[in-house]
């Protein structure tokens, strides 16, 4: 049952991802790649549906965080993103996809490889404090 729901979840958000990003002209192939990269490198802790767990915050928060001043930088500096074994281009694609899929928002302009390369070079040691500062508006 657990597996069935997991399979449906994957199928479901694959479809949603395609719809959301197709409008931006992103090729379905790229969406598929971003989804693959998310599953392989992020879902271990954030889980298949991005819901997080007892110890991991849900990715639904990313839309709200992204909209705050400094939020764009924050998402590129979180160690889970910054230290992932993805090159800058693919990490940028995952973040763009993730915001659309889980954050209910669009990265505008989308993250680029160059921007990600700069951000991930300064990973946070204390992302929870950075998040608190972000939410407190300073």
């Amino acid at each position, binding site marked *: 049952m657990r597996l069935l729901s997991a399979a449906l979840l994957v199928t479901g958000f694959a479809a949603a991802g395609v719809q959301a990003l197709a409008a931006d002209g992103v090729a379905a192939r790229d969406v598929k790649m971003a989804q693959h990269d998310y599953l392989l490198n992020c879902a271990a802790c954030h889980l298949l549906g991005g819901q997080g767990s007892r*110890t*991991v915050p849900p990715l639904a928060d990313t839309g709200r965080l992204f909209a705050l001043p400094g939020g764009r930088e924050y998402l590129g500096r979180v*160690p*889970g993103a*910054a*230290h*992932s*074994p993805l090159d800058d281009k693919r990490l940028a694609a995952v973040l763009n996809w993730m915001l659309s899929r889980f954050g209910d928002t669009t990265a505008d302009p989308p993250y680029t490889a160059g921007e990600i390369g700069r951000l*991930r070079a300064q*990973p*946070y*040691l*204390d*992302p*929870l*404090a950075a998040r608190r500062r972000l939410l407190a508006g300073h």
Partner: protein
Amino acid sequence: MKALLPALFAAILFALGPAADTAWPSAPEAPIVTQDPHGVVESVRPELGPHALWVGDRLFRHSILFDGDNGQALGMVDITWTLGGVAPHTSHSRREVYVVEPVYDRGHRGERIDYVTIYDLHTLAVTGEIELPTKGAEAGHGVALSALLDDERFLVVLNLVQSGSVTVVDLEQRRFAAEIPTAGCSLVYPTGRRSFGMLCGDGAALAITLADDGSAAETRRSEPFFDVVADPLSEKGARDGSRWLFASFDGYLHEVEFTGDKPSLVARWSLMTDRERADSWLVGGSQHLALHRDSRRLYSLVHQGQRGSHKDAGSEIWVYDTENHARIDTFEIPALLPAFLRPVLGLAPDSLAYRVLSFFTPSMGAHRVVVSQDDEPLLFLRHGEIGVIGVLDARDGRHLHTIEEAGMTGGEIRIP
């Protein structure tokens, strides 16, 4: 386990015995003096020799202190981790032993509280405990999950819950001192009086120096210096003062200096020739690197394997001079299995059957190696599934003896 049953029965009979005797009349008579003194509890001798060794055991969840010269057990401390078999830390100045452990209020169920349990090094009696946040990380290899810093005041414990941090414990005041966020970095390596290092997910190293209250006085990060995807560093390193030596999966030794402006890679050299690499020689194991600091000799467990064999047992020990970056010797790893089977099969050490068994049993290699730091150093070897310790002369690789019945399975080994 079967070997334990007779002992268990004996214990039950012993316990039942006096109860059946309670109806005897209590007429006054001369006191019974037993031939052997009754109720004696031993202590560990005041000075541990340089060849003492802690041997962790996953199955019985304790760590035994052995005298490596003669294989005698000196005592043991309990460790409750379900996976680890982690060996404890020993403070010689404070004469204490520290075990980091989670404790459940119903054995292995119920509420969990993490403690540093403190033992007296002489009596091995529990003399105190320090409650910690319930966050301590547990990993099967047991390596670099906690570190006793050099002035023996602070103990640092790795946490992997949420984004990652370390818990700092003040051993002098016996209290939790601080939690330091270290997201993205992991494992803890002592590097000095009050400093330790970590390895990070972007291929960088982190160096943290503590203030008097155990908080982070200074946190310094290196530039990324290794490729976490193509050729990652094994976390099973060997300490060299403020430096740590790490071998990469492809067999390149990285000497990392944790002091200075920021941690840095000071040397990188190959443990294998091109030819050896082509012959599939790789480093691997659970504690596969050991350094004898005075002689600058580095011992590396190696095997012939492929990607994914980085936890396999080493089939040989390659010995290097770290000054010249050159291999100077190769040690064979003795077959440890016969010594493991001997007591199980009930064979006498000098029996023909045991000699035949020893002759025909191939070596299955070793997963762990540590070296003592004295002038007549010993190498201690352990295979993850064979509960004995092979003891070699670290100077020439001679197999001196094997410590039998040294824990049933796995477990870290550590020089106290």
